[in-house]
């Protein structure tokens, strides 16, 4: 029981001791704040969101974000504010545009390509007779019963 409690407290503490202790009176605003801080990149420490980073830029941007939310700015307006200053790179979810088309289409192309390859491999294997494969009666797989 004690061990279980310890385990649970460890799991929970992760979110309690988050870098950012910011809170809002309005839970809806707080939810938007949490969502936005985890969709914006901190450019000072490029692989962290501004919600996860302790860098000074991230702190400043969180403060800015909080002020904009309290001023009633929409998510789109906030994202525009960020991209105007730091470019698309600041968004963890880049917009779909001609210049980002490769980025968005590449996974699909790879998936379709892999699918086609798998299809042909399976079809080729399927045409092979099971008699060709080694089994108990025929350990070396050569019965001469191949078509």
């Amino acid at each position, binding site marked *: 029981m004690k061990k279980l409690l310890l385990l649970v407290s460890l799991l929970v503490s992760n979110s309690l001791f988050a870098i950012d202790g910011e809170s809002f009176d309005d839970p809806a605003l707080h939810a938007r704040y949490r969502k936005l801080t985890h969709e914006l990149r901190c450019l000072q420490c490029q692989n962290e969101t501004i919600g996860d980073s302790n860098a000074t830029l991230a702190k400043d941007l969180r403060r800015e974000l909080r002020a904009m939310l309290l001023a009633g700015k929409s998510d789109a307006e906030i994202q525009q504010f960020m991209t105007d200053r730091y*470019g698309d790179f600041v968004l963890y979810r880049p917009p779909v545009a001609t210049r980002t088309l490769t980025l968005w289409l590449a996974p699909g192309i790879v998936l379709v390509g892999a699918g086609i390859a798998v299809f042909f491999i399976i079809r080729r294997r399927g045409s092979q007779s099971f008699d060709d494969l080694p089994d108990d009666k025929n350990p070396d797989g050569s019965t001469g019963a191949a078509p």
Partner: protein
Amino acid sequence: MKLRFLLPLLIFGALFATFGFMLHRTENGGYDPKIIQSPLLGKPAPAFRLISVEDPTKFVDTRDYLGQIYVLNVWGTWCVGCRQEHPALLEIARQQLVPIVGLDTRQDSSDSNELANAQQWLSRLGNPYVATAFDADGRAAIDWGVYGAPETFLIDAKGYVAYKHVGPLSVEAWQQKFVPRIEQLRAGSVAGSKP
């Protein structure tokens, strides 16, 4: 049949070549993944009106520099790279090609000594700036999209951002990246002003 065994080797070779090439470019300074192109390039420079570090009773206003090419250098006394580039800035200021305006930013909201530190820095190490604005709340730095001081911007006579350099500026980088652009801007504005 042979291709089947050759293919993994080809894929490995292609990856090896790609990674090797990018590492090589990173080593030689041609490519730095930390440098992100500023969306401000070709756009009007963000305006600010802030108190002056040299004389906090006065203001530094970007509108005062409209009509001339100038350089904005973002720095802070807490920033190691700024200390490193300071002699280069003094040398560049000595050339008197364009005025250098400073934007002194504090490290974070708990940093309350930056103004005093900056004044000391300028009197001790020399002042390359025609004026230095004090960005007390970090808002101006955010408006300029600053993510790693020192950063140096080139602003044209119309008040548009023409170029941005991230990281410590050297005299060589100045000669290679800034001087040709300044000359180009000057030639362009002369040509443009012809009736």
